């Protein structure tokens, strides 16, 4: 076997040192009635080449570009990833190391994560960011729990235009805690109804996503003011991190915590994971943050270096009193995001974000021209909601056969929005792709 280096001589001489007769003898300490009878019922081993064939066959059944044109976003976005990012990310010194518990041997990971924290904080306009979380949904759940710890209140308000799957995750996390989640409805123009906050008291946090699930840009400043009037924390959630290349960032709008999904920053969609949970806050809440943090320090010679720090918040020290049970971060995904942000740069990210916005505006305009209704008139970034006529399901199926995925249906998440679809356009879609979509939905 490729990955098992022991020869039979090695095994024999090692067994002798250990003082047992055979490999089974190593397990004498496991009571007889705990041991398996017979072999595991698993498929026989494949050679590397057989595995290649098998996996390629499986992967070919997937609908992906360039064969398919997928106009779906909803928390998972198709963006170009430079070859340099994928290449650097493959360096095995990064890939095959573990949590940098021994800083002298892990300065590569540590400096890279420190740089990620910095770029993430700059993108979101916050003072500090964590070393990353599992995904945008769990980052939101952790942020809400953090607000509850900080304010010692037991109720949070979340916008109904936060990604529905994120809200499900929050509900699951909250179920055994006894904490209450109240949902804010939405207005006709596709943004959160903040007036509902007026009658609410004792809120730990108000959480709003922008751009929201309908793609509409929320008035974050107004949310922040309302939240702070109630002495609640303002949590800005997001699913499309690239939007902050163009939009006002959460920090500038009074955000206390910004959290969301960073997959857009150089991470392949990979059927939804691994992803990048981003979580940033003001310095004031530094010691209440969940998850890992890397900090700058000096070595014995006074040379700059980096370490994991403020570890007393974490489970391996504080155990049941920790700020979270989280142990791992999604380090390699954070590294990909840092490489991507460094590659795009300040000038590049702005142009790239503009391009996303402008392309989506083009499709919006063309769909309008073709007679479809753009449901909400609030400004959007790279996603928007379209209402198609009754019976569109058949058209949808026909488009799938033509290798076009015309967005995702909103009906499962918002039953009142039957026939409404969420469409996404990024820089990866050409004008021709969009024209083809319009042509097909019209016919």
């Amino acid at each position, binding site marked *: 076997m490729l990955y098992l280096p022991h020869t039979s001589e090695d095994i024999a001489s090692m067994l002798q040192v250990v003082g047992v007769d055979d490999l089974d003898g190593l397990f004498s300490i496991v009571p007889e009635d705990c041991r398996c009878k017979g072999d595991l019922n698993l498929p026989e*081993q494949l050679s590397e080449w057989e595995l290649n064939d098998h996996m390629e066959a499986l992967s070919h059944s997937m609908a992906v570009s360039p064969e398919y044109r997928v106009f779906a976003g909803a928390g998972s976005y198709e963006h170009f990833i430079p070859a340099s990012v994928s290449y650097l990310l493959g360096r095995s010194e990064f890939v095959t190391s573990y949590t940098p518990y021994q800083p002298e041997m892990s300065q590569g990971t540590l400096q890279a994560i420190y740089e990620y924290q910095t770029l993430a904080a700059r993108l979101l306009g916050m003072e500090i960011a964590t070393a990353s979380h599992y995904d945008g*949904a769990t980052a939101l759940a952790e942020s809400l729990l953090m607000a509850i710890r900080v304010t010692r209140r037991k109720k949070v308000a979340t916008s109904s235009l936060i990604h529905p799957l994120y809200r499900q995750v929050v509900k699951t996390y909250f179920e055994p805690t006894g904490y209450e989640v109240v949902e804010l409805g939405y207005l006709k123009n596709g943004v959160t109804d903040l007036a509902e906050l007026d009658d609410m008291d004792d809120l730990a946090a108000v959480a709003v996503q922008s751009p929201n699930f309908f793609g509409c840009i929320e008035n974050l400043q107004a949310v922040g003011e309302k939240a702070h009037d109630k002495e609640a924390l303002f949590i800005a959630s997001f699913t499309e991190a690239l939007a902050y290349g163009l939009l006002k960032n959460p920090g500038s709008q009074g955000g206390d915590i910004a959290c969301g999904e960073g997959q857009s920053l150089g991470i392949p969609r990979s059927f939804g994971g691994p992803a990048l949970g981003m979580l940033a806050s003001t310095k004031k809440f530094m010691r209440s943050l969940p998850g890992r943090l890397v900090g700058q320090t000096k070595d014995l010679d006074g040379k700059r270096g980096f370490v994991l720090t403020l570890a007393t918040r974490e489970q391996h020290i504080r155990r049941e009193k920790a700020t979270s049970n989280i142990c791992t971060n999604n380090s*390699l995904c954070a590294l990909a995001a840092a490489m991507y942000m460094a590659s795009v740069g300040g000038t590049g990210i702005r142009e790239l974000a503009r391009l996303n916005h402008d392309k989506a505006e083009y499709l919006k305009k063309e769909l309008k021209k073709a007679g479809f209704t753009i449901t909400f008139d609030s400004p959007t970034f790279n996603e928007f909601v379209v209402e198609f006529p009754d019976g569109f399901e058949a058209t949808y199926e026909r488009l799938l056969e033509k290798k076009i995925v015309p967005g995702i249906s909103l009906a499962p998440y918002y039953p009142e929005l039957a026939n409404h679809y969420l469409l996404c356009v990024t820089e990866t879609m050409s004008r021709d792709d969009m024209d083809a979509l319009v042509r097909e939905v019209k016919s």
Partner: protein
Amino acid sequence: MKESVGTTGLILNESLLWEKGKKGRCGFSLPRRDVESCPLDQELTGKGPDFPDLSEVDVVRHYTRLSQWNFGVDTGMYPLGSCTMKYSPKTNGRQASLPGFATAHPLLPASLSQGALKMMFELEQYLAEITGMDATTLQPAAGAHGELTGILLIYAFHKKKGAQRSKIIVPDTAHGTNPASVALCGYRPVLVRSNKQGILSVEAVAEVMDEDTAGIMVTNPNTLGLFEENSQKIAEIVHAKGGLVYCDGANMNAVMGIVQMGKIGVDVMHLNLHKTFSTPHGGGGPGSGPVCVKSELEPFLPVPRVIEENGRYVLAEDYPESVGKVAAFHGSFGVMIKAYSYIRTMGPKNLKKASQLAVLNANYIKERLKGTLHLAYDRPCMHECVFSDEHQKAGKVTTLDMAKRLMDYGFHPPTVYFPLVVDGAIMVEPTETESKEEIDQFIEAFKAIVNEARQDPDRLHDAPKRCKVKRLDEVAAARKPCLAG
């Protein structure tokens, strides 16, 4: 002793990203603009993030240099106890990067994602078989996330029975994630001490188990590298009072094909695909922490679940008793592919052999180093063994000093100061992918270090000397945190 692998090479300095670059550079090929500009209302737009502008060469050199300051399994032996730093086969990464998998949107209709769903369906079954359980969810993104999911399942189970309980038993050898996960679900962890042999005794559990206790969380093999021999009897006691048994499967690498936890009373357990199933650790993630359950907990598993209908795979949502969702989409799909590939290329016989050799390697190290270092529990171990600095303390040399000195010899140090039940613990987990020669060299290095500890302790106090940096001031880092530049 063979020539030490530790040496100094030319290590280049590299500044921080924002100390480099010049305004106007770009390391990204911006796509063609084929639509007209359509500016957003200025009320909505900001200044844009203050990122440095770098060329592709700037970025490539930067990260190449950074990578050279890192040590990975591909660099050398990384015997970090409880972390199972085994070699990550390269073919697994290849499969995960196939465009059909890597670029797939998670909300594609099932008809357009059969390959992904089939892989997930099969992986769930393989993991259930390996653990002897009935069903699996792949949604949790890491071990601790699996624990949270598992405890949520236990919570849902008791809630359905109509009588919620308030406590969960956690042994003193547990990972910190265990009590933290328990607390996150509103339960109070009840500490139970391991006995003189380093394992749980039936009596200790019987004493605390009552009808207000939702269950027990046991790591098996435990963090001392010992098999919990009484696990079956303990499960009987817990079950008799209506509780459930959670197994933290972090150390499953010791017993694949040897013990099926489902057959010895475990009701729910998580696996770490990044430990047992060889997926790379990535500098601390992403991981994947699938949870396997017995049939009585299956109705509560997260949704959606992959099911097979007439040879087609679909995502089913209709499980009214489900705890809901623990991740936005399906979990760490890319990691699952690597673990799936590993299981397929190993096959049942090699998985068992991997466990046997992991246990052989650990026992071999234990036998050969126990005259040199104090061995906390002198009995047959599983995949890891725990020493301490007991013999070196008098000479004012600590576990930390020896760990740092190992770096100069070209090895990543073992896990230190954990588990907490052993003062100054040194927890060595070689894994099965280290050869006898490599292990012999590690043993010789440790012996040489212990020798130095006697003759020249300052050499240890000043270690490491051959890394990019010397010992770092963690006190200053925590007193005046600087978390962003």
